[in-house]
């Protein structure tokens, strides 16, 4: 799939999202529930701001010393009997995994939910070499069964589908004849998947956090499919974004506590699995061979910039769950597997800046995302920084906007021209002004997109200079 989802550009996707009443209802309901579950969990914990501060300190220190901790991690994994591959690009990561799969002559792989494997388009790469990859997370299984539909949320990827849609997909693709009761459909999936784990040659997972001091890694989940994926196949391949690491087990406690509470309002998820020496089958099960693939894929470009804190993200999606823009347009509108505020900050770095230049504008800048972030990433400030970068560094502002800004610069530099323009503006915009509420609803040129969806107050007939002058005169004359 890759990071990009769909072929349409931003505004047509937004239009589709806004018109999809079913999806919007599902998103509203999910956002409200996830948000209230999180608030309850953080209230119960107490001292939430202290937890956030600690989370921020841990993530900041780790990212500032990322080379050291990755070195330590790789040394320990090798010592424990595993293989480590550092992949600068998605292509390098894909090719390495393909090589392992070919060496094993594997034809069947089971995979547990992982965003980074989506990002590097791993499934397609394995299909190309004749290896069938089965998504085993319930939501991912639904998406895969529905002709590889796209995820719309980081934690709950099939949020946009209601139970009836899911029943229909199962009926058409798998011959399901039951009702749309979630329990019944999940029971059906359980039967469909169980034996596939036993047939698989390869298990593929993501990694929530690696622990540098011991060469361990953690997978945080609820369903148990990641446990099956890491227990039954003889070869395990884990793919991690290079920033998903903590120094020691003591910090793992903090980030896992923050993740579980922020993502789903649980104290801990049903399963947290921590591997240190996955190879060897010493317990009579588990993999014989282990490969860890550490992926850069554009992440290092954020280091040393004002966007470095983006790498502190622990992928809990709590910023998505409070975002008013996501609420209205849904996850697919972002055109990226990473939607919402974190997606709007992250995607332009990981993919093409030109293609995703609209995303930083998909924000009300209300700051709810920043307030929700458990590791205090200043998301709305980063969105503003993106906007500056898009206009000044990347020179990607639309032509009419550039012209308008140039004209404004010229006018604002000359007091006479500024006064003349201020006087002229009410007359020029008069035809577009609604006489009832004195606002412009469908303005001309570069203000058109803005005024189509927002109210813009029409310029007052009396300019500020005039008003101020009048006030001063009245004050001098003693009228005030």
């Amino acid at each position, binding site marked *: 799939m890759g990071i990009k989802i769909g072929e349409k550009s931003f505004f047509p996707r937004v239009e589709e999202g806004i018109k999809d009443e079913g999806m919007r209802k599902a998103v509203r309901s999910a956002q409200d529930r996830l948000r209230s579950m999180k608030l309850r969990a953080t209230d119960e914990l*107490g*001292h939430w701001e*202290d937890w956030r*501060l*600690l989370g921020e*300190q841990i993530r900041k220190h780790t990212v500032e*010393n*990322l*080379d*050291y901790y*990755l*070195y330590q991690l*790789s040394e320990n994994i090798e010592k424990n009997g595993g*293989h*480590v*591959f*550092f992949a*600068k690009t998605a292509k390098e990561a894909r090719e390495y995994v393909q090589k392992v799969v070919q060496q094993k002559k594997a034809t069947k792989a089971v995979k547990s939910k992982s965003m980074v494997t989506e990002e590097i388009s791993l499934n397609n790469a394995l299909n190309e070499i004749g290896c069938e990859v089965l998504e*085993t997370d*319930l939501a991912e299984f639904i998406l895969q069964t529905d002709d590889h539909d796209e995820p719309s949320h980081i934690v*709950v990827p099939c949020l946009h589908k209601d*139970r009836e849609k*899911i029943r229909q997909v199962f009926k058409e693709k798998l011959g399901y004849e039951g009702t749309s009761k*979630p*329990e019944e*459909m*999940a029971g059906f999936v359980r039967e469909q998947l169980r034996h596939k784990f036993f047939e698989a040659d390869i298990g593929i997972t993501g990694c929530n956090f690696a622990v540098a*001091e011991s060469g361990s890694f953690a997978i945080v989940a*609820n*369903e*148990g*499919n990641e446990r*099956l994926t890491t*227990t039954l196949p003889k070869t395990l391949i884990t793919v991690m974004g*290079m920033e998903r690491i903590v*120094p*020691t*087990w*003591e910090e793992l*406690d903090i980030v*896992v*506590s923050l993740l579980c509470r922020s993502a789903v309002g*649980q*104290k*801990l998820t*049903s*399963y947290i*699995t*921590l*591997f240190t020496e*996955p190879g060897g089958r*010493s*317990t*009579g099960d*588990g993999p014989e061979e282990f490969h860890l693939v550490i992926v*850069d894929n554009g992440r*290092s*470009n954020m*280091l*040393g910039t004002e966007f470095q804190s983006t790498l502190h993200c622990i992928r809990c999606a709590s910023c998505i769950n409070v975002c008013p823009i996501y609420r209205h347009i849904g996850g697919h509108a972002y055109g990226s597997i990473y939607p919402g505020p974190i997606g709007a900050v992250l995607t332009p770095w990981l993919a093409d800046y030109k293609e995703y230049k609209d995303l930083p504008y998909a924000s009300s800048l209300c700051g709810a995302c920043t307030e929700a972030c458990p590791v205090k990433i200043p998301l709305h400030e980063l969105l503003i920084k993106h906007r500056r970068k898009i206009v000044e560094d990347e020179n990607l502002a639309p032509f009419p906007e550039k012209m308008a800004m140039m004209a404004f610069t010229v006018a604002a530099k000359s007091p006479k021209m500024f006064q003349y323009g201020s006087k002229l503006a009410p007359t020029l915009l008069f035809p577009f002004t609604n006489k009832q509420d004195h606002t412009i609803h469908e303005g001309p040129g570069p203000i058109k997109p803005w005024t189509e969806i927002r109210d813009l107050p029409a310029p007052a007939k009396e300019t500020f200079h005039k008003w101020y002058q009048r006030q001063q005169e009245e004050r001098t004359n003693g009228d005030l």
Partner: protein
Amino acid sequence: MAIYNREEFLSRIAEKLGREQKIESVNRPTWTTAPHLELYRDFSKDDLVNMFETQCDVIHTHFKQTSVAELPHLLRECFDELNAQKVVIAGDPRIEEYGLNRFFTKLTESDFYVHTWEADKGDENIEFAANADVGITFSDITLAESGTVVLLNDSGGKGRSVSLLPRTYIAIIPKSSFVPRMTQAMQQIHIRVNEGKLLPSCINLISGPSNSADIEMNLIVGVHGPVRATYIVVSDK
């Protein structure tokens, strides 16, 4: 065992960070706040068991409490309630310590199939576990706050599948294994690392049965792993 492309990868990171590459020790700073260390600080073992019992309701897990002497009777009641006939147990020295050897041997004399996990038995273990009604393990560390049993699956009889493949999972929890929360478990492991000791190959933190909320946010229990979990807290011998 091999590491590929490390030098180039790490030097790029250092370059982007605007400094020389660090491969020598980095000192962890002293964090300015530690809210986790204060939580449940003064709780007694009984307080922790009470908190654990309350949390079991939240995570849809059956809570039971008994003595060592009564443990076999309680297990038998559980099996009857579940109509269970195939039981897999982790090969753990505590089976003998808690007097369960005789109980399981006696069970096999009736209609029960009891399989004790031993790494040397190979795939036979997995085949049995996949069709078992019940899987039983002892908890190594128990987290009161989240209702979590921690299994240190290192070698031999502690198969990862015992708590995963059967339809019902039963954890036997020594009262002495209780700690307030994840903090204390992670501290114990951190100390082991510092002492240069080997860590278990797989550590499982299990908080109730497998569950999902992927269909309209409805909670569904038992999507992949066990559909039911029972925790039995046992007063120590």
